[in-house]
């Protein structure tokens, strides 16, 4: 299935490191306050996708989801997930490495 999400090489390397430490992973695109609009990377079992979540695709072996309403309001974007320095405040796993995921997106098809 051709996805609507991809990741930069540093993200793919990060996901391998995090996967070795925490097991299978999942990424949920967030919204709202503070770190809102950032991708949040979690152990896969931590937040199973709900019925309203849309699967955008996978990066490496990691599935990436977005809330369905959010997907519509973001106009079904294509996301590119990147990595930058400095921890964010949420529960996203890359914070333990003092990094944060960022999302670059373009309007979708």
């Amino acid at each position, binding site marked *: 299935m051709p996805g609507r999400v991809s990741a930069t090489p540093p993200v793919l390397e990060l996901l391998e490191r995090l996967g070795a430490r925490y097991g299978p992973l999942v990424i949920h695109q967030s919204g709202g*306050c*503070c770190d809102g609009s950032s991708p*949040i990377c979690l152990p896969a079992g931590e*937040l199973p996708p709900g019925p309203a979540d849309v699967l955008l695709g996978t990066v490496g072996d990691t599935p990436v989801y977005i809330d369905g309403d959010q997907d519509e309001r*973001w106009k079904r974007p294509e996301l590119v997930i990147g990595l930058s320095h*400095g921890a964010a405040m*949420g*529960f996203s796993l890359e914070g333990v490495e003092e990094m*944060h995921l960022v999302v670059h997106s373009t309007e979708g098809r």
Partner: protein
Amino acid sequence: MAIAVDTPTVFAAPGQPGSLVELKSRYDNFIGGEWVAPVGGAYRENLSPATAEPFCEVADSTPADIELALDAAHAAKDAWGRRSPAERAAVLDAIADAMQENLEMLAVAESWENGKPVRETLGADLPLAIDHFRYFAGAVRAEEGSISEIDEQTYAYHFREPLGVVGQIIPFNFPLLMAAWKIAPALAGGNCTVIKPASPTPWSLLKLAEVIEDVVPPGVLNIVNGSGAEVGRALGSSKRIAKIAFTGETVTGRLIMGYAAQNLIPSTTELGGKSPNIFFEDMLDADDELLDKAIEGLVLYAFNKGEVCTCPSRALIQESIYEEFMGRALERIRAISQGNPLDPSTQIGPQVSRAQLEKIESYVQIGLDEGAELLIGGHAPVMEGELADGYYFEPTVLKGENSMRVFQEEIFGPVLAVTTFRDEQEALEIANDTMYGLGAGVWTRDGSRAFRMGRAIQAGRVWTNCYHLYPAGAAFGGYKSSGVGRENHRMMLDHYTQTKCLLVSYDPKPLGFF
């Protein structure tokens, strides 16, 4: 909030000669009334966003430290929960007194760590936080249970009892005020708390702990710093808490509610918004103080550099007044002074982190790509000297349509999305066309219209002819995807207690079934 600043000179940064703020090189966790080194022995550099330079180290804890804090809280909870309301109120008042005595010191610490201008911490953050403790000190003493007469010989006595030990996760945008919002009602209700400050702002709450450590009984208030991924998760998912409160983004909000469901405990989540600020044409009927207030009301999107859950980040202006009203607002925006947050004349400081700055930059680009018109700002300014590497972004205004992403997504920066509306009906449609519903502003000289709009806007707080006021006695919280639960107001005592019903029969006669 009154902005009263009469200090003419720039405050010295914490640890610098002449600073009001003493600085140690390293800060431990605050557990059981003691300063406790993290079990794993790790610390993390803590930056000021004004310079991007580290100024101290703070504990980088592990789940074992959360367990220590929970041990301390559980050891303290029975004695604290039995204290009379008057005794608990006295502790809250003592916290407020200690904060008042150290107001300038705490304001400088908060400003340097978060980047918010010291005129805001002096005039808003600290006075509001202090008042929050005083409000709940008063409120808890005025609480009463209730008695229901079931029948002549049967009575239901209702008591409010503490939950026990609660977990509270604080955001980075108002590290002290948001902590006060959570600590004051929890302690007033007779609970002990374990707090996880936000990763970008772990320190100012520790400075507060230094000034109140002698007035809060050991174990009642515990602070553990570390990453959200490990320490926040350990706290939020713990079987040893009776409630979890969280402010932040939606995915972690869902996680928190999931942990609460798994542990069968209550949660409150405050998850942000995209608040509309609506200006009707009658605002221009007079050139008076109220018009001036409305113009400032629009510019309040730059308050705390836009890092506010209720940032009025969508301005809806009636098209008949758009040119003149926006022209005057842009004049005011152009005059915003940006610089060292410790300079009392600075009106906008740096964003809290590089993560935030990068997000803001990317959103401005998204807006421009979607065809929004840049009216002012749009860039990271060139700063001089020690501020050169700070996380600054210019106050920015984009004009466009409500369907654009910059109108739908919370940017959490000084970026205003402005659009126009024809009439009241269209204003309402635009205002409600969002996933969120935390705050809103309505500006009009017509009281009936203000009431109609206020009732019809789907948001938990509708400011009417004002904005960004946060009195302790006014309920705050979200509709729609902006979270579940409320903060502020004495109703919080209900959220931080549970109901005990003593159902008593004074009738000696058996029921007769067996």
